[in-house]
């Protein structure tokens, strides 16, 4: 087989795969790459930037590999053969130097982006911030709206373009709270509170889930995150406040019992300080 045909045999499937990939991606929702929130958008931009930077190493490596492998194959007797040529200060300086330069650039980006996109940092906005207290349970998510005095299970609603400040804990094992369309995740841990700040920039319904294994019902532990305009958000809150169930301690304990693929549920009037009392169970041993 000629070298040209060999290259063709390798190149053709690669092109076909790239083609299929483009078709697939254009027809499916890829939340990390097509964000619907300001934080997710910045994280996506960072992803693309780092990818381009990495191309400065990947492209030379791939081309060098192919060229060298072709040229210096044993059957090509025309190629130079220097069995003892085994170091070159100039060349080695280049390939210690170039990755160092790339990593130096990326380090600066890492430092600034770690601070700019610190999940604990509140998002500055002309719009008011919504506070949501998130509790991971076996195996569902509880969302408490302390200022609006309502709560929901496995459905989160937030007003579009309003910053949302999540306070997160767990009343079971560790979970991870993740809505890829809106931005990165953070762990939910018993006896501890973590925080996450997100902001939706588009209306829609987004997939949220736990990213950390938490037992039998883990796979069913996903929820719907609704990004609504403010009016629709208000009527959603109103719907919750009309719910039959109130989230008193007794009802909370009922809810906290293990259940799988829990349906969406609405509650009114969560007990005062429920969120901090849930955390304190583990810190002070105080019973709910």
């Amino acid at each position, binding site marked *: 087989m000629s070298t040209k045909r060999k290259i063709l045999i390798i190149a053709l499937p690669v092109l076909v795969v790239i083609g299929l990939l483009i078709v697939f991606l254009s027809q499916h929702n890829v*939340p990390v790459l097509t964000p619907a929130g300001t934080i997710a958008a910045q994280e996506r931009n960072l992803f693309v930037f*780092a990818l381009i930077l990495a191309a400065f190493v990947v492209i030379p490596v791939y081309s060098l590999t192919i060229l060298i492998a072709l040229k210096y194959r044993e059957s090509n007797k025309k190629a130079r053969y220097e069995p003892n040529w085994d170091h070159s200060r100039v060349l080695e300086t280049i390939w210690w130097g170039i990755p160092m330069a790339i990593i130096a650039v990326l380090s600066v980006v890492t430092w600034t*982006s770690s601070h700019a996109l*610190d999940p604990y940092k509140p998002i500055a906005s002309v719009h008011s911030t919504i506070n949501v207290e998130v509790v991971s349970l076996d195996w569902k998510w509880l969302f408490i709206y302390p200022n609006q005095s309502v709560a929901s299970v496995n459905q989160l609603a937030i007003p579009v373009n309003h910053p949302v400040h999540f306070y997160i804990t767990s009343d079971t094992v560790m979970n*991870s709270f993740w809505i890829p369309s809106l931005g990165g995740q*953070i762990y939910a841990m018993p006896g501890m509170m973590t925080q996450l700040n997100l902001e939706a920039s588009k209306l829609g319904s987004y997939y949220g889930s736990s*990213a*950390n294994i938490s037992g039998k019902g883990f796979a069913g532990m996903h929820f719907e995150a609704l990004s609504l305009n403010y009016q629709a958000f208000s009527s959603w809150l109103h719907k919750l406040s009309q719910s039959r169930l109130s989230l008193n301690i007794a009802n909370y304990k009922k809810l906290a019992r293990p259940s799988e693929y829990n349906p969406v549920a609405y509650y009114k009037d969560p007990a005062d300080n429920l969120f901090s009392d849930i955390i304190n169970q583990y810190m002070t041993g105080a019973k709910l």
Partner: protein
Amino acid sequence: MYLANLFGRFSGGNVFPTSLVTAAAAIGVVILIIAILLLITLTRRWTWLWREWLTTTNHKKIGVMYLIVAILMLLRGASDAAMMRLQQATSVGSSHGFMSASMFQQVASAHGTIMIFFAAMGLMFGLINLVLPLQIGARDVAFPFMNATSFWLFAAGALLINVSLGLGDFSAAGWLAYPPLSELKYSPTTGVDYWIWSLQIAGIGSLMSGINFITTILKERARGMSLMKMPLFSWSVLGAMVLVAFAFPILTVTLALLALDRTLGTHFFTAGGGGNAMMYVNLIWAWGHPEVYILVLPAFGIFSEVVSTFSSKSLFGYKSMVWAIMAIVVLSYGVWLHHFFTMGAGANVNAVFGIATMLIAIPTGVKIFNWLFTMYRGRIRFTSPMIWFMGFIFLFTMGGVAGVLMAVPAIDFQLHNSLFLVAHFHTMIVSGVLFGYFAGITYWFPKVFGFRLNDKLGKYAAYLWIIGFVVAFGPLYILGLMGATRRLDHYSAATGWHLLFVTAGIGGAIIACGIAVQFVQVIYSIIKRDETKDITGDPWNGRTLEWSTASPPPFYNFAVLPVVRSRDAFWDMKHRKDLPESEIVALHLPKNTPAGLFIAVFAFIFGFSMIWHLWVLAPIGLIGIILTVLIRTTSGEHEEIVSVKTINQIEASMTSWKDYARE
């Protein structure tokens, strides 16, 4: 009451598997073991087995036994992977696949645990045992009895983890068993205990191996082999073993604390009671991150030998390579937090660990360029080890890019625990570690067994693995970007993930074909072994000392220890026709001993008793270990003398390059 204490958890019920698949697997394993025992009995091989293998202290035989156990475990891990691929390709929407959630989670946890601790570690220690003493011109490792004990502890751990198929269950808490999920409150069955004790027993064996090989490299090198003349594989082993010596004690302590929580009710990592699960996560990764480099460094070493040999050219940038290994060793201790940027450590901490992680990309990149320039102006023979190497370069570079992306904390928040992460570390471990070991096995196979493996079948296997890998793990990168998290036994149809999971399943099937071809390769090569017999001891035109002795080498490796004058010691000898002149003298070599096997049997009894709360049996296991060690260390002569006459007889019966160089 007393009876209940005697039988521990056995009196509590739920002992035997309820799932059909597990039961079938357990019965299969039992039948296999009975068949092997029967075969040994029928062919009257017990004395042979005892004398030649079970009590051996010879590093080459121990290496072969490591490989056998590791390949069995690789098959177990691969079956687990196949089950997961099948489940995820079918369990969508209203269908829930063929496994229950808890069984899927057990299979997933077993896959990770077995692949890392028993397949990858086993292949690594197997290859190190086979090659390292030969490559540095030594007659054995520094502590041959300890070496045998390490192997048997490893085998005991491997057996213990497979007992969970038939008795009790296995951990469903993921391969690193994060608390609080792995605590008694949330995992009340024997599962996590199986995980703890099989790793604890194997882990102590690994720690002892680490100490053994560090000592061997530092004390047993041939005359003239200064550290900077040492072959790259030996350097990479030194780096890896330094990591073992400092990382494995952390694992031992972490597992012990978790075991205390589960058996004595302490509160190191519990939710509540003053426990702190975050401490566990830090500790386990302070071991876990170096562990990745423990596995990959020897593979880097193998690639260095393979590329140099098959390019018929000395390794480019030797000093850079050595510094790169040592830089990786140091840096790999300082990056563990990148496994949990999402725990909320704060921007400063996350950024520091992110940058430290990226730094590792520098020495790794340097190594890749040095390999490429080893090929440059060489004469490259594309044998199957070189095909594994080419697959490694393409995949590992891609996986490395994914790794650098995730080293940026703000990017990692969107990728952590997703299938993107799963795809990333499989790219690193399959292409880096596994391909490296496959190349190493093919490369050193003739040295160990005296004949080469069929190269054509080896190439087919490599192609199938590479293509299968891309088809299986390419989709996982995209699935991660689509929000798919790891360890899902089911997902809804609305996610749009199904097609990609099916594609990944097809990729898994292609890899399975690759594995099948590898078995055909071994069997075919054994049948046709006369055609590929290695009579020179140097089938590849090698460069390092292991090729200067016969294939397979005599049990004492070298009748006369070689003297090293340059970096590619054997290449140099061949070109100067430098034949060793010194006289053969009688040798002191370690005697066989069953003590290592006995220690492992007692360790198995102890681990099994701790899992099942057999409080009467547990002390027997522990006392058994102590007594065996005491008896062995206080008993007299551990060495035997091999006379000059015997050596001369053996030397006359085998050929190596010297016999051809004389002509």
